[in-house]
């Protein structure tokens, strides 16, 4: 992978690392996201994906979901540091729960030139049961949801089709313990 950043690409640095999804319940107040993001950058932790929305209007609570990479020891330290922040109610590593579910949503815009491409795209969209949001002559927009892994596979498959142009947005994973 070539990189124009002065920083080393993190891929190798995280060989021992495991992917973890952290679920954080916070008071929805100004600066809370900055506190959390600042904690990660200040202590050299990694954010792979981040999602935040109010989930309880009455009690003014937001849920923040962060996908991060790190050794187990580092993840425990991140959780302990998060729980020290005043507006944080709880921080949970979903992997530590006996049962938890993850989902992510992705919108993909695909531009194509010919019928053959269209057919292949349609085929994959069908296999992955993605929903058509909009279809024009040479453009189609799909919505696909599920685990991040499933979305990755869908995108990998799309990439096998030559000559199409793909633009996408992903929510990052969200998750819930049961």
């Amino acid at each position: 992978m070539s990189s124009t950043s002065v920083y080393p690409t993190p891929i190798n640095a995280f060989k021992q690392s495991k992917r973890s999804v952290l679920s954080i319940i916070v008071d929805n107040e100004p600066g809370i996201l900055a506190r959390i993001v600042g904690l990660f950058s200040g202590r050299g932790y990694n954010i792979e994906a981040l999602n935040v929305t109010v989930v309880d209007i009455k009690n003014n609570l937001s849920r923040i979901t962060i996908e991060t990479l790190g050794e187990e020891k580092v993840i425990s330290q991140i959780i302990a540091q998060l729980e020290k922040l005043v507006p944080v109610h709880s921080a949970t590593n979903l992997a530590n729960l006996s049962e938890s579910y993850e989902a992510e949503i992705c919108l993909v815009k695909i531009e194509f030139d010919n019928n053959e491409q269209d057919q292949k795209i349609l085929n994959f969209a069908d296999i992955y049961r993605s929903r058509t949001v909009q279809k024009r002559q040479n453009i189609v927009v799909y919505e696909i949801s599920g685990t991040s892994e499933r979305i990755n596979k869908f995108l990998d498959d799309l990439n096998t089709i030559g000559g199409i142009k793909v633009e996408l947005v992903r929510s990052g994973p969200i998750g819930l313990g049961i």
Partner: protein
Amino acid sequence: MDNENEFTGADILLKALKDQEVDTIFGYPGGAVLPIYDAIFGQNFLKHVLVRQEAGAVHAAEGYARSSGKVGVLLVTSGPGVTNVVTGLTDALMDSIPIVCISGQVPSHLIGTDAFQECDTTGITRPCTKHNYLVKDVSKLSETIHEAFKIASSGRPGPVLIDIPKDVQFAKSKYISKKDISFREHRIKAGSKNVDKNFVQELVNHIKKSERPIFYVGGGCLNSGPQASQELIELVNKTNIPITTTLHGLGCFPGEDKSSLGMLGMHGNYEANLAMNKCDLMINVGARFDDRVTGRLDAFSPDSVKFHIDIDQSSINKNVKVDFHTNTDITMTLKEINSFIESNNIELEKKDYTNWWGQINDWRKKECLHYEQGEEIIKPQHAISRLYDLTTQKDTFITTEVGQHQMWAAQYYKFSKPNRWITSGGLGTMGFGMPAAVGAQMANPDSLVIDIAGEASFLMNIQEIATAVQYKLPIKIFILNNEYMGMVRQWQELLHGSRYSESYVDALPDFKKLAESFNAVGVRAKNISELDDAINEMVSIDRPVIADIWVDKKENCFPMIPSGAAHHEMLLSKYDKENPENQEKGKVLV
């Protein structure tokens, strides 16, 4: 509409401070805090100490807090006023000192316009406070201030900042008193409420089994309150277990007691570091396994079972993995250990750890703090020893700057009580000691307060002598003047081939004349025959005194565990040479 029950934001602030029993505030005025200064003008419960630079205010608040156990409070204006306190806030965060900083902000409608003296105060101070607030609505002010004090002083203490826009200082609202506020528990982070009985039982079982136990005590013990020290003394006496403390733990246990091995760590005692290295049971009471203490981590106390009591969950298993931990207040936990031993009639007296103490006493024979005082030039170690001998009968508080003098003070001045030793450990802030002495003297007007200083550090906040003079605070600045940034020079000597790049402090002022120009008193000792007189004179004068003590310029601070080395690889004197492999690795560390 003027309502009798409504007050301006500035008045609400003062009411809240009164409610919090604040009687002293350190500050410096400016445009964005004028309404608050106006409110201060017309009252008399709160004594305002006008510092000469905001850095002085924050270190004074720290000194006040450390020496009194109360929350230190300061007041600064927007923009440069508040950026000047960033170092001190970081210092208080690292060393867990409870302070509340009130800062003015430009009026709400100007926020975000790059207005005059506007800065993103909450943004700048977010990583260097335990928590901070921007209060945009005057009706939230009372509650915010009370929560700020609660957060600053609960759990692991730390600095909290409240930024108040000028229009909010003028706006009116009701005042809500402290007793009418119910705190939301998740925001207070006070640690676990109940003692972990299982932890206590395990610990006592391990004490019974252990052959080579040690207590490793840090600043958390101090922050748990004076009762923690009492419980610790009782426990040490009961168990006959040796005890070593960190830089901040000094005074939690009497330094002259036979069970005390003194300070451990980079410049700690030989016997303390070796005992840590060889122990089979380590009982960590409120210390955080700082790199200055552990040395090389992979060689840190390899054979011990480790117990850790710390109210801060994130300090547990951060640097060193422990076998048992509890996230509970130290006083509560130690009390439970003592009463568990008592009520179960556990006979620890039989365990006198003869071999272990024998081994420790052999290490003690190395006399790692030995120095040779000649006929003429004052050895800095000797200056501290004499200062200790000549002031030990008095009720003394010691603050320090940062450098060799700080380490010599920690080694040669002995503390018998907590809260008497006020130093910048985690951040190592030069310029801390003198304003901290101002704060300590405000809190303890009848005590002797001495800043043990280096000449370079002292120059960093020298303006605060004027504060001491104005408020008639008879603080003593005891300068170990070696004309060098001694600690920098020492590292250059050990690690950089004695290339003393920029560590000579040239063009020093005449400290005696400087004292006089501030209307303070200057005394000087140039050689050993003048030392005791200078100390006695300094102590006897009831005004601020600067004592300029000329010490050996080339003296180094030993023992020393060089960065990257392990506890058992200490250098005891300049004749010890470091293993070259460690030296290369250590060079890149701090």
